[in-house]
């Protein structure tokens, strides 16, 4: 099973990296930019069945290690 975990800065948290990338996009002539946020993609490959217990463990891994809930949100996509 393959899992893509997306970690993004919370909407109300300052994202200096996103702001800098946004400025660079504007210099590139990429117009009408309303916002740029930079996050992370974490690709996992696991040998487990997609059960509610597994989802609970995955949630915990995302909450306790892969993201920091003070500053980041996470979501994931589970692919067979």
């Amino acid at each position: 099973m393959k899992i893509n975990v997306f970690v993004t800065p919370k909407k109300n948290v300052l994202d200096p990296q996103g702001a800098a990338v946004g400025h660079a996009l504007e210099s590139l002539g990429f117009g009408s930019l309303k916002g740029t946020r930079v996050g992370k993609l974490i690709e996992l490959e696991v040998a487990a069945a997609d059960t509610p217990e597994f989802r609970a463990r995955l949630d915990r891994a995302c909450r306790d290690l892969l993201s920091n809930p003070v500053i980041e949100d996470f979501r994931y996509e589970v692919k067979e």
Partner: protein
Amino acid sequence: MTIAVLQFPGSNCDQDAFHLFASGLKLPTRYVWHKDRSLGGADLVVVPGGFSYGDYLRCGAIARFSPVMAAVRDHAEAGGLVFGICNGFQILCEAGLLPGALIRNASLEYRCQTCALKVEASTDGFSPRTLGAEIRLPIGHGEGNYRTDEAGLARLEKSRQILLRYADNPNGSLSDIAGIRNERGNVFGMMPHPDRAFERFHPSQDGLAVARAVLAARFPEALRAAS
């Protein structure tokens, strides 16, 4: 009264922190490796600066899962003293021993300079009465921008948990916060480096008083003896 200085792969201020307590304050100090499960009865645990685990994922995120951190958590829960400097502060926030988080500096620059810091009235040790209204300490970090939500900031203010504020904010930190403590008053963290501010060749000598201020919470006699 003994001090433990933790060492993680990538710690690079462990010897500075050791020197501060062993030579500066002349207290029995030893290193504790990140794989150790015991702090050997230390009264104060110092989590030093550096780039533990290469700052991978987020600063301090991986160090938090080192075996020694379970002992640090037990020590803190039992009321023992913990002091995190720079990366150590980031580790303590990641571990949930201090509230909030530290993100990339607003300027995106690594800032290496000596900062004037406003001393807040927080504890017996950390107050303008003991440290003076303003001290100077060096910083050296790329991720010192302190963040918490509105309710978190209100709690810090209400319980007087803010120790130091930048006079001229170098990193975009919320409310100019440079250092905080937990509500109970036994866990301390700051981005500035007292371990780089006590020798005559250092840019300031205010670091020694800061080290004493940490100890003052539980060992007031150490504060008196060393002043």
